């Protein structure tokens, strides 16, 4: 599907759009919340969509929490009755991929944080234990676990050179799978600041191993396929709402969904228009069909 025209949605158009869709996929950071603050009107929008008979899913590249923690966050921020089954994080989907698609026989060596470890455990995927630094162990002599058949890299605040070297050793075997939770180079924090993302760690490992990772998170199609395998989605009747053109909108485009950019997060209208007007086909796919100031713009249509 070619990229969209960045049309600003108003009034009756919003109602018509919602009438034509059965399933609504929301990104989280920058769309329904920012940090620990819900976007004004977002909880009501989600509730009303469900009351109107729509199915709602949350699709996030953020791999730092297990789904259980997300349920608590939804509750804390005033979203009523969001169930674990409706939440698809890159951590959950990476575990699902290893278990259901790769059907991993063996262990996975993980560069990642607690959220990823927890999802892998919950999915029953064995994780290679990280030995605490033994005296004499160094980047030059790290012992390898012969049962490791996959490497998964994601955001890891405890990332070290040692982990990079170890992962690179495992990836020398061409049968060893190479997965990344998401490609985001940096993540926004409150106050306009940023922190390094999974994408930067993945880039280091790709360079070291001369291999390309299979990326689970947006804009790759896998997260959509994961939801669809459980809930049977029709792309033509699904709507993707996000704030990051290179991940959310490109994801929607890759999966054949109608895309909406909200301006409460990372990307700007100017950036969206630049993608729309670009000559390169790949860039055009980052242009959304529609643009809205905020998800609260759905309220009027829903409350009628």
């Amino acid at each position: 599907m070619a990229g969209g025209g960045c049309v600003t949605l108003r009034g009756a158009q919003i109602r018509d759009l919602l009438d034509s869709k059965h399933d609504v996929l929301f990104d989280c950071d920058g769309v329904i919340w920012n940090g620990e603050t819900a976007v004004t009107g977002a909880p009501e929008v989600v509730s009303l969509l469900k009351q109107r008979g729509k199915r709602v899913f949350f699709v996030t590249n953020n791999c730092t929490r297990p789904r259980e923690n997300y349920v608590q966050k939804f509750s804390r921020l005033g979203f009523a009755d969001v169930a674990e089954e409706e939440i698809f994080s890159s951590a959950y989907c990476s575990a699902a991929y290893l278990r259901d698609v790769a059907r991993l026989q063996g262990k996975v060596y993980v560069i990642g944080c607690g959220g990823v470890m927890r999802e892998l455990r919950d999915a029953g995927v064995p994780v290679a234990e990280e030995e605490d630094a033994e005296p004499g162990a160094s980047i030059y002599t790290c012992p390898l676990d012969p049962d490791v058949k996959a490497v998964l890299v994601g955001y890891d605040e405890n990332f070290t050179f040692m982990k990079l070297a170890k992962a690179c050793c495992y990836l020398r075997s061409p049968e060893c799978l190479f997965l990344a939770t998401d490609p985001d180079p940096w993540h926004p924090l409150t106050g306009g600041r940023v922190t390094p993302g999974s994408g930067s760690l993945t880039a280091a490992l790709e360079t070291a191993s001369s291999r390309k990772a299979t990326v689970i998170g947006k804009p790759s199609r896998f997260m959509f396929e994961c939801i669809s395998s459980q809930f049977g989605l029709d792309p033509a009747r699904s709507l993707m709402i996000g704030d990051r053109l290179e991940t959310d909108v490109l994801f929607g485009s890759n999966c054949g969904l109608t895309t909406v950019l909200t301006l409460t997060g990372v990307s700007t209208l100017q950036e969206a228009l630049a993608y729309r007007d670009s000559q390169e086909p790949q860039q055009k796919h980052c242009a959304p069909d529609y643009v809205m100031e905020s998800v609260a713009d759905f309220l009027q249509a829903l409350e009628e």
Partner: protein
Amino acid sequence: MAASKCNVTRLTEALSRQLLDSVDSVLFDCDGVIWRGDQAIPGASEVINSLKKNGKRVFFVTNNSTKTRQMYADKLGKLGFDASADEVFGTAYCSAVYLKNVCKLDGKVYLIGSNAMRQELEDVGIRPVGVGPDPISGGQKDWANVPLDNEVRAVLVGFDEHFSYMKLNRALQYLCNPDCQFVGTNTDTRLPLEGGKAVPGTGCLLKAVETAAQRQAQVVGKPSSFMFECVASQFGLDPERCLMVGDRLDTDIMLGSNCGLKTLLTLTGVSTVAEAEANQKSECPQRQKMVPDYYIESIADILPALQA
């Protein structure tokens, strides 16, 4: 499009004599050319010492940022090479010179790198901050608010075995300021070690920082011509009278092509004749730069021509 060079030519003894007569200075890469780890390539020290006796100047040009010029001179001496520190051009030294003379750095540099790099920077009067272990503490909110040294005007990335998320984060915070300069020592993906092993190289660390910051670093090391300019400006070299000897087509030979030097590929390291010939046959101008004038099995094979 640049004219293709002749077929990759084996350097025979006769051609060796011709080649040596046509140059005054010989620049050698180190890893895979004169040594492998801590073992000298057999015959290499005799070649270097013989070249000097024959009145040639000899220089050592390496992308490895883990040693100072003096540390390299010590290693060279231990392995039987007649060499002094001022003949060595490693990226620890050259990055310091680059920051001083090209970036005209007025302020401190946030350094992801080794103590050797710290020393070379201090020797040219630049104060680095950040060397050594830097483990994570606090939570995400704290990382965006790490105290920044407001005298830092540049970020320099070299090989650092203490590389961590926190260092990556600090570099990112500094690089969010577009006026902060961004320099890398080299883009090699593997770092050869003593004992014949290898670990991920500086290129990997640099890629992580470039990706997070969405910025490209200025790279000092081969194939950037700065490494040659550094030697040439200090010793008054004429490129046409210089020979670059290396084992990597994408760094050593490309540097030679970029600077108009004669080039010799030795087969004791990374690249092969087959790769050179494939480059030669390709239509791509970039790959054409990675075709050496000559190749040789090992630099030891030059010895007969020198002793004749």
